[in-house]
């Protein structure tokens, strides 16, 4: 087993364990152990099973979905800068969510509105990019970037006119925040579906790196593969954004970290990206919850603060 594979395999349980062990309330190891076994104090059990475990899983699911989407988009768009935000889906979801917040809607309605915004953006990208001869990656890129900046303007306008009491909540949403995440079941389900679909196409994705014509010549149904992978990336992005807002950097950096460590086959890259993205976000969220406890920082800030130096360090070492 490669060292990087081993590291990621160890990191997954370690990050989830840390996310459950630490929080704004200090728990002794014996209390933790009892609670995990379903014994001991009821409040401690509720903290561990009712609060921290779902939050850890939500962070993991969110990070894994973003990393998976980023990996797929970087191949599909043949662009190393591609990340989940490039589809405009995050921007659409942000505009939807903020509009609902501005209207004073409840949390559930904010999610529905975010889903609607994200779907509008995804629909537009699909409509403009899917021609008779298949997908046009340049159109995906241009449509996505145009939509993202359009939604960005709307978001800016809403921030400017929102009453100051609402602005902080909006900013947390935009920076990426897992505190309102709630039940991660739906996101974990989306993660299972997206991972399985993407993984089933891993050999074809390897061939797609050679270009569309060569992939066709080698027997890949390119348009079908692209539709499937774009669909997967969109679903993953929407599920992640609904859970944690627009968390940046995980989707961009995680695939590069793995590629720079020598992982390039998608059969390994996709599952490792999901695991690494998930663990990193679970860890970042643990830090976000504890670093200034009882206050919580938006986790998106931490992913950027950790991700930027890590990538720069790796780039410097591999020069």
């Amino acid at each position: 087993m490669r060292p990087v594979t081993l590291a990621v395999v160890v990191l997954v349980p370690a990050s989830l364990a840390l996310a459950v062990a630490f929080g704004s309330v200090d728990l002794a190891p014996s209390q933790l152990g009892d609670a995990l076994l379903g014994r001991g104090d009821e409040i401690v059990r509720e903290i561990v099973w009712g609060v921290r475990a779902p939050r850890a899983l939500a962070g993991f699911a969110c990070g894994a979905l973003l990393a998976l989407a980023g990996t797929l988009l970087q191949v599909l768009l043949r662009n190393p800068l591609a990340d989940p935000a490039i589809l405009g889906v995050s921007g659409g979801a942000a505009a939807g969510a903020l509009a609902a917040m501005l209207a004073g809607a409840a949390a559930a309605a904010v999610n529905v509105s975010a889903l609607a915004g994200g779907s509008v953006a995804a629909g537009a990208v699909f409509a403009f990019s899917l021609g008779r001869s298949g997908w046009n990656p340049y159109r995906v890129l241009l449509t996505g970037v145009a939509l993202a900046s359009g939604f960005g303007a709307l978001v800016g306008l809403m921030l400017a006119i929102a009453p100051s009491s609402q602005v902080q909540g909006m900013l947390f949403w935009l920076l990426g925040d897992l505190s309102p995440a709630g039940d991660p079941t739906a996101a974990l389900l989306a993660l299972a579906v997206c991972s399985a679909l993407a993984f089933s196409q891993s050999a074809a994705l390897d061939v797609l790196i050679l270009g569309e014509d060569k992939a066709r010549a080698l027997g890949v149904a390119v348009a079908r593969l692209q539709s499937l992978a774009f669909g997967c990336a969109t679903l993953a992005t929407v599920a992640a954004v609904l859970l944690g807002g627009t968390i940046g950097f995980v989707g961009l950096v995680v695939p590069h970290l793995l590629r720079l460590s020598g992982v390039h086959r998608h059969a390994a890259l996709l599952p490792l990206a999901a695991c690494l993205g998930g663990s990193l976000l679970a860890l970042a969220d643990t830090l976000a919850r504890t670093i200034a406890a009882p206050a919580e920082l938006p986790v998106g800030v931490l992913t950027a603060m950790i991700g930027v130096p890590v990538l720069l360090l790796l780039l410097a070492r591999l020069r």
Partner: protein
Amino acid sequence: MLRTSRLALSAGGRELVRRLDLSLAPGECWSLLGRNGAGKTSLILALAGLRAPQSGAVALDGVPLPAIGRRELARRIAVLLQDEDSDFWGSVLDYVMLGRFPRSKSAWSRDGEGAALARRWLAELDLADRETQAYRTLSGGERQRARIAQVLVQDADILLLDEPLQHLDLRHQAQVMGTLSACAAGGKTVLAALHEPGHAARHCGFSVLLYDAGRASLGRSSDMLTQANLEALYQCRLEAAGAWSFLPS
């Protein structure tokens, strides 16, 4: 048997091929000659089923190409494209093994036969010691040979090659032409777009000459590759270069 009937191709409003009837049979090695922009690449893409023709059809053993599934077609026809925008990060062997995609059963089954074939072709093309090297770090000519090895491990009956000799030095030009004509002698069908009539005359029994404005002529290389034909084809005067014309023996 790969056969075109009344094939017409055009690009950017220019007529490249008009009513071409071409039959490529097993055991035949064809060269495809023509000026830059004459339509050699377009013809190869159409023969491979990668571009739909303006009119006419290409059929493999009597079945029109669009009626054959992509994967099945890739087991029958292998194509070397002229360029490839490749960002491949893996080793040379990994790169060559991508040619096994149409023959792989699942992502998890180990393709021992394919790996043996890949090593054999890498050795034949002087790349045996580059197997574990990163593909990105190869020189232009080495990359070209790795690309040819990838086409060969596909193990298809029909090989279509767009400028297989580009970037290659004299030794490796002769090596690649020798390999291709050996494939044809072994029962495969080979068609290669070339710019060197000398290689075409020595290794290819048949030639297609693509003239301007959609005109083409085809036949045995010994009949086609005359000085008069080549002067008309390339639109320039030619003379025997004497002592400066070398072909590896």
